[in-house]
C-alpha cells in the first residue's frame, strides 16, 4: 500500500553517479482517481526548502523507465497507473543534507471530458516535510 499523501516518504534519497552525488529523488503518487497518459501531464516543478527546480532539471521514472519532461509531452501510450509511484529525480549537485526538508511538488494534467478551460486547473501543489536519512 502507498502512503496517503501525493509525496511519499519512502524513496526520498540522494542520487549518486560516478561516486558523486548529483541530485536527489522523491516518489509521488497520483491523487487523481484515474491513471494518466504521460502526454496528459504538464511539466512538474519541485521546490526544496525554497529552492525551485523545473524543466530538464527533473526526470520522471515510471515502471523503471526514465523520461525527460520534454519527452513526456509526446508519450500518449505510456500510462502512469495509480498503484505505481513515479520517482522524480532532481538535479542538484551535492544532493541534500540528512535531516528535515520542506518539499513541494506541483503539476497539472489535461482531462478531455471536462471543458477545455479546466486543463490548466487540475492537479496542483503538494507539500510535505520529509526526512532524509
Amino acid at each position, binding site marked *: 500500500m502507498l502512503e*496517503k499523501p501525493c509525496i511519499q516518504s519512502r524513496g526520498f534519497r540522494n542520487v549518486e553517479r560516478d561516486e558523486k552525488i548529483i541530485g536527489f529523488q522523491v516518489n509521488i503518487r497520483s491523487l487523481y482517481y484515474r491513471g494518466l497518459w504521460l*502526454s*496528459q501531464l504538464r511539466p512538474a516543478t519541485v521546490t526544496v526548502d525554497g529552492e525551485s527546480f523545473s524543466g530538464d532539471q527533473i526526470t520522471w521514472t515510471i515502471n523503471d523507465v526514465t523520461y525527460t519532461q520534454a519527452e513526456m509531452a509526446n508519450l500518449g501510450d505510456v*500510462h502512469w*497507473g495509480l498503484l505505481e509511484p513515479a520517482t522524480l529525480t532532481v538535479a542538484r549537485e551535492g544532493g541534500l543534507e540528512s535531516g528535515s526538508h520542506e518539499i513541494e511538488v506541483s503539476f497539472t494534467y489535461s482531462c478531455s471530458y471536462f*471543458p*477545455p478551460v479546466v486543463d490548466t486547473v487540475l492537479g496542483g501543489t503538494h507539500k510535505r516535510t520529509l526526512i532524509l536519512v
Partner: protein
Amino acid sequence: MTNRVENYEKPKRGVSLYSYAGEFGVTMSLEDMFAEMHDLGARGLEILANSHIEGYPNPSDEWLENWDRLINKYDIVPVEYGHWVDSRLYQGRQLTPEESYEMLVRDFKLANRLGFTVLRTKLGVIDDDLTPVENWKDFIKMALPMAEKYNVRMCPEIHAPTLLKSKMVDEYVEFIEQTGTKYFGLNIDFGVFTTQTLPASEWGPDAFILPESEHSLVEDIIPLLPYVYCCHAKFVKMSEDFQEMTIPYEKIINTLVEHNWDGYMVSEYEGPKKDVTGYAVEQVRKHHVMMKRILGE
C-alpha cells in the same frame, strides 16, 4: 443482452469502484473492494480501466489470472468498464478519428478479456455544456463492427448538467436509430435528477462543487430505457435513516421497475469526505440498504 442474466425483470445492484477512489491503493486493494461488494450483495461491478487495471493497457498474465480468481471467489458480475477517448491527449490538437478508433479498440479487447459487456465510453468535450468532440460519429461508426466482434456496448454517460431532454441526447438517440446498432447506447447518471443541493458547508473547503443546474424529470428516462445498458446510481449523501438527500431515489427505482428495466444500477459515491478513511465505504453500505428496501429485496 448478456448483461441481463437474471430471469426476473428488476434493476440489479452494483458498485462503481470509483466510489472507493480515496481508499484504493492506500487502505483497500482490488480484492478488498470485491470483498466489500460481496458483503453488500452487490454483484454488478464497474471498474475504471485506467484506475483499476494494474499495468493498463497491458496487464500481466499474473494480474489477469488473479482477476479471474477474484471474480469467481467473490461472485462478481463484470458489468461496466469505464474508459475514455482522451481527445486532448496531446497538447494543442485533438485526436484524429483513427487515433480515437485505436483507443476504443484497445479497450474493447481488454474489456472482453475481463468479461465486461458494457462500456462507459467517456468522450472528450469542446465546451462548458459538455458538447462532445465534433468527430465522435466518425470514430464511433468506425468502431461498431469491432464492438460487435468483442461484444461490448459503448455508452456515453449522460451526466449533469446535461438534461435528458436535450440536443445532445437527441443526437445520440438519432445515431442509434439511424444505424440500428445494438453496440452503442446510454449510461444515465442519476445526478441528472438532482432536486436538492447539499449546503456548501457539507463539502470541504477545497471541494469542487458542481454549480446548481436545471434537472431532468424522472419520467424523462422512460423513452430512453431501450437504449440504457447501465445506470450510475450517483449519490452524494446518505442520511442516518438511509435516505439519499439530493436525488429522488424512490421515484427513480420505481420507474425503472414499472418499465421492466433490468440492468445494473452501480453505486457511484460522489459526495464529501471521500478522502476520510472509511467514510465512502460506509456511505455505499447505506446506499445499498436504501436500494434493497426500495427494490423489496
